[in-house]
């Protein structure tokens, strides 16, 4: 029984990755889990310079979910390559470096710097960042800008290039399509939704940044709908993310069209979650007599009586 993922230069032993920003650089949780059981580790977004991140409070709990405003706190590219990458290279899993930047030039600069480094299996590009040149407008909410980032980075690397899409757009399929057209090898989705929490005692927003990134099981229905929408629009493999807590959730994402999945918030509840999910998926395939887990990808059966309204909210 085969659970591996192969696409171009990317080879994962299974379909489970850990999501950027939810697993540190691997070393923090090595005592809680067997890293070699995870298909791939996506690193915390790395920026050119170190970033201290946002002021507290950075975390708010919501019904079945959480908000974060970490603010891309990270060690910066130099310390990342000098101190984090060496540890990660020795882990028996694939390393996917997630890149964040506030100008297209900065994306390019980081990627080119990483091209010199060994042991990187893929890049994941976080486009949910404010574009300083456009007055803070989020790169990822504008198709042209997402396309431009993809095009510029594609020119500069032969490594596996994943664009991580934000769900905070009207038609995510358009973004997935644009990434495919501009040469991305894959798209991953969803990044966090925009959410907010209020403390009625202090009458202040809970988070220092007012709004924050919404993740966890609460958002799974949105993530499934977005992955389904994107999967119908593109041929490149999709990596599904959003609220995955169990192997069952992971199988749901495969069925709607994801070729692999990422585990995010679940790591906070159980640092062994990703390993358990990979095991659970394998056990499920064994039980169901599935020889290659690829059979499940996009295998959702849509009944004759079921229409396919795509992105149109089904209100009529």
């Amino acid at each position, binding site marked *: 029984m085969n659970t591996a993922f192969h696409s171009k230069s990317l080879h994962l032993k299974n379909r489970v990755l850990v999501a950027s*920003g*939810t*697993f*540190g650089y691997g070393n*923090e*949780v090595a*005592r*809680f889990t067997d890293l070699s059981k995870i298909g791939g580790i996506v690193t*915390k977004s790395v920026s050119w310079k*170190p*970033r*201290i*991140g946002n*002021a*507290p*409070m*950075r*975390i*708010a*709990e*919501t*019904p*079945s*979910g*959480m908000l*974060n405003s*970490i603010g891309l*706190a990270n*060690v910066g590219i130099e310390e990342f390559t000098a101190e984090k990458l060496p540890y990660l290279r020795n882990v028996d899993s694939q390393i996917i470096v997630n890149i964040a930047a506030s100008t297209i030039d900065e994306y390019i600069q980081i990627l080119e710097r990483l091209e010199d480094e060994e042991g990187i299996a893929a890049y994941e590009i976080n486009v949910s960042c404010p574009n300083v040149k456009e007055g803070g407008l989020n790169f990822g909410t504008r198709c042209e800008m997402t396309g431009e980032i993809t095009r510029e980075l594609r020119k500069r690397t032969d490594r596996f290039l994943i664009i991580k899409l934000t769900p905070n757009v009207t038609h995510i399929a358009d973004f997935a399509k644009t990434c495919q057209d501009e040469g991305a090898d894959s798209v991953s989705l969803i990044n966090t939704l925009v959410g907010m929490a209020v*403390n009625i*005692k*202090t009458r*202040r927003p809970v988070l220092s940044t007012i709004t924050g990134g919404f993740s*966890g*099981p*609460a958002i799974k229905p949105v993530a499934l709908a977005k992955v389904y929408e994107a999967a119908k629009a593109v041929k490149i493999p999709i990596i599904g993310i959003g609220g995955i*807590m169990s192997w069952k959730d992971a199988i749901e994402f495969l069925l709607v069209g994801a070729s692999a999945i990422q585990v995010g*918030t679940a*790591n*906070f*509840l*159980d*640092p*062994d979650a990703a390993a358990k999910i990979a095991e659970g998926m394998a056990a499920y395939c064994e039980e169901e007599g599935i020889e290659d887990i690829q059979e499940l990808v996009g295998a959702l059966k849509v009944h004759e009586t079921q229409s396919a309204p795509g992105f149109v909210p089904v209100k009529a």
Partner: protein
Amino acid sequence: MTVNQWYSVRSNRKVAEETYALRFSAPELAETIKPGQFLNVRVTKEHDPLLRRPYSISNIYGDECEIVYAVEGRGTNILSRMDETSEIGVIGPLGNPFGMEKDYGTAVIMAGGIGVAPFPILTTALKEMGKNTVTLVGARNGTRLFTDGLADPIVATDDGSAGYHGNVLDCFKAQVDLSSLDNPRIFACGPTPMLHAIQQYALETGIQCELSLETEMACGMGICQGCPIESKSAPRKYSLVCTDGPCFEADDIVFHQHTHA
């Protein structure tokens, strides 16, 4: 040894107003966990409330670990309804222990409200080390006081219903002769405004002082970056309370009025 598993609740007794002590049997944890470290606890197997809640290890009874908690919100409400048929999910030990091995003479324990939680186990450890201790415990009122496992606690209450009428620090100043203490070191835990005041007192008097901090936490193990505290020793402004703390030297921490909420 590090644990990440579900345990049956052995007992869960009310020990003071809105305050409970919960025990579970975990020999592997009881053996290794140190005063000042904490556990990150899941109170349900459902998705709401979602996050774990951090609790200091309060005491060890043979194989059993005890946490002491105040009923604050949803998580602690659920905890308070638990009995022997209930289970809690435990990750730990997490964080760094109190600096018991530092160079000092007398340990001055200052606990405010549920900040008393980590001190029974610390008291035992200090006794084993042969240290002198002075212990001050503050609470809103007498019915909320919990002093089990502490050595000769001096009590203060906000409303004067038991012991000194006022807060722990004022009580210390009023009732303890500082000059009689041999090279003291403060170990403090409680609400942030209290810790802030104790920090200022320690800086003014030059007394060694260690604060056990509380912040919101999503993971408790350094992977979410959700628990920053401004710290002078941090290379990039913020330390993480979960992995760099929760115990910090008082002079390392920068408090801001608006982080007291």
